[in-house]
């Protein structure tokens, strides 16, 4: 029953994607135009990549608040290194490697010392962002290599298909994550530890190792999103990740992954990310100001989650 419920939640999110699209297409002229659909797809994929780690961390029963800071870190460091002529492959290795270390540190500390990950990732994220700002003296420079620009560009195309490579990349990534979560030791351990930490330790799972790995993955994908964003916006900024703090959490929750751990998956998150981006586009298309869009989005997230993402009553936990 649980399994069907989980897949149902992801399914519900996908139904939501279609439904909101239909509403948008009816209400707003141009909502279903190629340009608008492509923009929503690209933005949705960017958010999904950033939220991949948040999904894994939440299956574990944690939360990663350092995602926006790591996005900013990758964005700025990649641009600076590229600007100073470091080979691109080396930059990838440096940025993703450093992100992995940052994430692993947060995860290991949280698990080893039983400190809530919310606090650790907040602290570590703050340190990372401040470090970047001190390094660049608040004035980041540099840009992305052209191939990254085309990879995420709104005008990009894959052969005859009218969207950039980011879109098929995200689809492949989704399938890969699905496979890893279902069919690898890591994936099953992730769900087990999230489902019952005490039983997991007795079942020979090492929580510190798994937490370090998972938070490292979260940071690596946040960094990847940061690099993509560099290609998308064209210039670097340490604060480029700021909206992703709440958006990743919302996408994961709308996608049906519960914060209590042990349930959910990335397929739902992808749908959740698309739902969020569609809603934003819809609200902006209706002529609302940025402030009203924010408030309305808050109301809509509440309605969505109240409709199908509620927690169990305490009596069912006895």
């Amino acid at each position, binding site marked *: 029953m649980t399994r069907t419920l989980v897949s149902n939640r992801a399914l519900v999110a996908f139904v939501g994607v279609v439904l909101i699209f239909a509403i948008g297409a009816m209400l707003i002229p141009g909502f279903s135009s190629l340009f608008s659909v492509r923009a929503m797809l690209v933005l949705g994929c960017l958010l999904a990549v950033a939220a991949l780690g948040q999904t894994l961390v939440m299956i574990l029963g944690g939360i990663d608040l350092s995602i926006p800071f790591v996005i900013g870190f990758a964005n700025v460091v990649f641009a600076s290194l590229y600007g100073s002529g470091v080979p691109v492959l080396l930059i990838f290795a440096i940025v993703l490697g450093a992100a992995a270390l940052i994430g692993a540190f947060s995860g290991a500390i949280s698990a080893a010392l039983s400190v809530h990950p919310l606090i650790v990732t907040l602290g570590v994220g*703050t340190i990372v962002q401040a470090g970047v700002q001190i390094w660049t003296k608040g004035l980041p420079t540099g840009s992305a290599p052209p191939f990254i620009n085309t990879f995420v560009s709104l005008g990009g195309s894959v052969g005859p298909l009218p969207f950039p490579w980011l879109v098929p990349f995200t689809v492949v990534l989704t399938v890969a994550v699905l496979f890893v979560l279902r069919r690898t030791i890591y994936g099953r351990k992730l769900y087990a530890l999230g489902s019952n930490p005490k039983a997991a330790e007795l079942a020979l799972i090492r929580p510190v190792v798994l937490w370090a790995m998972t938070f490292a993955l979260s940071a690596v994908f946040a960094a990847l999103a940061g690099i993509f964003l560099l290609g998308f916006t064209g210039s670097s900024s340490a604060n480029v990740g700021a909206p992703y703090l709440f958006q990743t959490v919302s996408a994961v929750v709308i996608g049906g992954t519960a914060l209590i751990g042990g349930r959910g998956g990335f397929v739902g998150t992808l749908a959740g990310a698309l739902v969020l981006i569609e809603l934003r586009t819809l609200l902006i298309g209706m002529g609302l100001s940025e402030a009203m869009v924010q408030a309305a989005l808050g109301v809509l997230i509440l309605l969505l989650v109240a409709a199908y993402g509620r927690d169990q009553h305490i009596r069912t936990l006895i």
Partner: protein
Amino acid sequence: MTPTETTPRAGGAWRTILAARADTRLAALLFVVLLVINIVLNPARFSPTNWLSVLGLAAPLLLASLAVTIPFLAGRGSIDVSVGPLMGLINVIIVQVLITSAGIGSPVVLVAAALVLGLASGVLNGFLAAILRIQPIVATLSTYLIYAGLTLVILPSPAGTVPAWLSAFSGWLSFIPVGAAVVIWLIIRRLPYYDLLMAVGSDDRAAYTSGVNVPAVRFTAYVLAGLFAGLAALSLTGLIGSGDPNIGPGYTLIAIAAVALGGVSLAGGVGGMTAAFLGAADIFLLQSMLTAFNVSTFVLQMTYGIVLVLAVCLNSEKLKLYLRNRMRPQ
């Protein structure tokens, strides 16, 4: 359940702080050290005649920290991240809607309005998180977005002025909002509700099986958080002396950092006003000290982060247990 905080005795504030529970000892130590450094660095600012102004400067963070503490005490992921934007929303409603547009200047009306708005937000958050059972961080994140959005709609950029009595909340009257919070907390401590709250936070299943209405206890925790956020908004409005839509949201994360520093457990059942105030005071004094050194905001930010991570690690029960086992002679 945790042992209660010590009540003030003849030994004075120092003794009270140092004799406090183990969870807050680190924060208390840090408080003393930071206070001494601050007094040495800036004797004029921290002279007794200036204490009320200093309290006024610190009050919004102190009260915001107390507000975020209460849901944490209720456990199982209870959290209120909407406290910061709520302070901002109340600030612009008081200044823009009540003072500027409606021309109201009466202390009774404005104070009542701030508290009622705070309580209303608490009722909303409590309903969403405790009754409707939307995961608390998602529920309060949504209200976060709603409040922050509404704030900008009401007042897109800083504007307005406040009556003199309200400005005084950051000066010689600064003891009023903080004092009110202390009194309310001390009353809560003496109510049976406090025991229920701590019981639910420590082990909600056990509390439920022994007949505690767990959702009602959690609901009340959010309502109280809203009430304290209302007081925090009054202090904030007094301090900035105008309406500012951008300043509120920042308080959420700093307040959460402060209470973690103070030793409040995010898992529930551990902490209270002393922990919240000490953590907030530490952050405030740290900020004050670094400003005296004239460092950049980036260095300030990095110091926050390092202090926060170090403090929560040193406060970890697991680390203490490990060290104790290590030190024990075989």
